[in-house]
């Protein structure tokens, strides 16, 4: 970026005006950005601030730093136990983790086959998958509930939800892997492996799959975010309280305690926390993963 800047100033006209104009301009930009940034963060700051306050203090003034009941973590303790936080957290973790692992493996294998075996089967299914990306979830949810709920009666199992997460993410993940394999995995390497005595499966798992690393990282990030935050699909599949994921628990919890602002704010903070911690740790990876996923 600084490269871009120095080139801009190499225009003779703006040189004459000197550095002061540029300084003023960048000060203005900083001010605008700062104002917008505060505006964007405002909802989070409000939730954070009020999660430590009592209901009475929140209702009298959500901004105030001077409280009658003081700041404490009582709301967090209550929310944590009442929403059975640890349990739903583990549900989310297990469901997101296994869905992501399976979809990564299956889509990489599919994409590898589609690229390397250019037969009719590959063509039919790879275009079918690519086309299915535009189907909105709402056009599938009704038959899905009827088939898996009314007919087969397999809803309300975590495994069913994992199964569906895999099915819905297959097309996008396979599509992205296909593009990467086509342009970045040299076939000569695979031929060398075959000559050295690797069979197809070893070639894939020991040679090709490790080469897919960057794409795997992108897809893991995209899928983890999607699965972790998903609400509509899990709400249609899971109903037993012990099986609910974090977004589902938050939803029911909000319904029960909606008037108890302090506890609600703490519950929202608790729900947001795991992903924010992950973001703090892997910020640049997540950002580049999201961009890579969108641009492809």
């Amino acid at each position, binding site marked *: 970026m600084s490269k871009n800047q120095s080139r801009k100033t190499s225009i003779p006209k703006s040189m004459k005006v000197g550095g002061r104009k540029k300084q003023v301009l960048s000060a203005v930009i900083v001010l605008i950005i700062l104002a917008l940034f505060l505006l964007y963060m405002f909802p989070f700051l409000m939730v954070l601030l009020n999660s430590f306050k009592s209901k009475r203090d929140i209702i009298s003034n959500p901004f105030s730093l001077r409280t009658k009941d003081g700041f404490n973590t009582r709301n967090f303790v209550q929310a944590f136990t009442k929403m059975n936080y640890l349990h739903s957290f583990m549900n989310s973790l297990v469901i997101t983790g296994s869905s992501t692992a399976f979809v990564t493996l299956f889509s990489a294998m*599919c994409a590898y086959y589609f690229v390397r075996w250019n037969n009719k089967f590959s063509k039919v299914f790879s275009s079918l998958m690519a086309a299915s990306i535009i189907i909105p979830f709402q056009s599938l949810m009704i038959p899905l509930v009827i088939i898996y709920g009314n007919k087969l009666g397999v809803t309300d199992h975590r495994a069913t939800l994992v199964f569906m997460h895999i099915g*819905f993410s297959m097309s996008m993940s396979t599509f992205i892997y296909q593009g990467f394999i086509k342009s970045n995995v040299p076939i000569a390497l695979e031929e060398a492996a075959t000559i050295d005595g690797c069979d197809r499966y070893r070639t894939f798992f020991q040679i090709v799959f490790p080469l897919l690393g960057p794409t795997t990282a992108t897809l893991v990030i995209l899928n983890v975010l999607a699965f972790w935050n998903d*609400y509509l699909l899990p709400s249609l599949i899971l109903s037993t309280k012990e099986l609910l994921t974090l977004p589902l628990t938050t939803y029911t919890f909000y319904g029960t305690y909606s008037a108890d602002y302090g506890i609600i704010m703490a519950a929202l903070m608790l729900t947001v926390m795991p992903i924010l911690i992950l*973001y703090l740790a892997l910020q640049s990876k997540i*950002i580049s993963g999201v961009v890579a996923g969108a641009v492809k």
Partner: protein
Amino acid sequence: MKKSRTSDLRAGFMFTTPGILIFVLVVIIPFLYGFYLTFTDWNGVKEIKNLIGFKNYANTFKDKEFWASMLLTLRYVAFSVILVNAIAFLLAYLLTSGIKGQNFFRAGFFTPNLIGGVVLGFIWQFIFLRVLPTLGKRWGWTVFTNSWLSDPKTAFWALVVVTVWQLSGYMMLIYIAGFMSMNHDVLEAASIDGAIGARRMWFIIMPLMVPSFVICVFMTLSRSFMVYDINLTLTKGGPYGTTRLVAMHVYEKAFTSRLYGIGQAEALFLFFMVAIISAIQISIGKKREVAA
């Protein structure tokens, strides 16, 4: 590579079966079954299912609430797409100008996208119900004195605000990637030729950013068309069902009113809308793309 036909088949089976099988069971079969469903009058409870021809489609056209929600959704999508992309483009432009801490700001603006719509809706419900009215009363800002969620007109704008707040950070990242990959020689040549300021923006930068615009418009379009979570937790369709977007309408038709056939017919209509719009959008984008 030496391949025999049978081992080819076996490899294909091993590599593709798990993924394709699940894909077919979860996406293709429900999709086809959904078509069949639109020709029946099933309510999910009855044993008997009657084939009733195109009656569900006829009812879809007569369903006033469906068209009201469709119209509302179109309005919502239009405002969201325009505002999200305008603000995202501005943010990206400002955050590639080389100011200090721009990575920090980028990360911050993106944050809402990490969090599920359910939680975002609840957070903003609190803002609209408690925080803004307090602000309005204290400082005499009449726009905020009454909660935005209690009036149909402002409740609609509350939905747009939250959507813009969330998605603009996402699209900003894509525009930033566009700005970063721009060919600086072209920009330099243009400035030497006298293209600066607004002209530089309009004639040089904008055309070069067309690929980013295509991606972003496509993504905002498809996302806002299908929005459900935020709608559910921010307004719950209220006040008095005035902010029920089409996804919520379909959900209620099927799972609350138990009219599976009509619900599915409307859902398929939504599918065709999305398909047509994205096809148009992609072909327009392809035409206007410049080879840089």
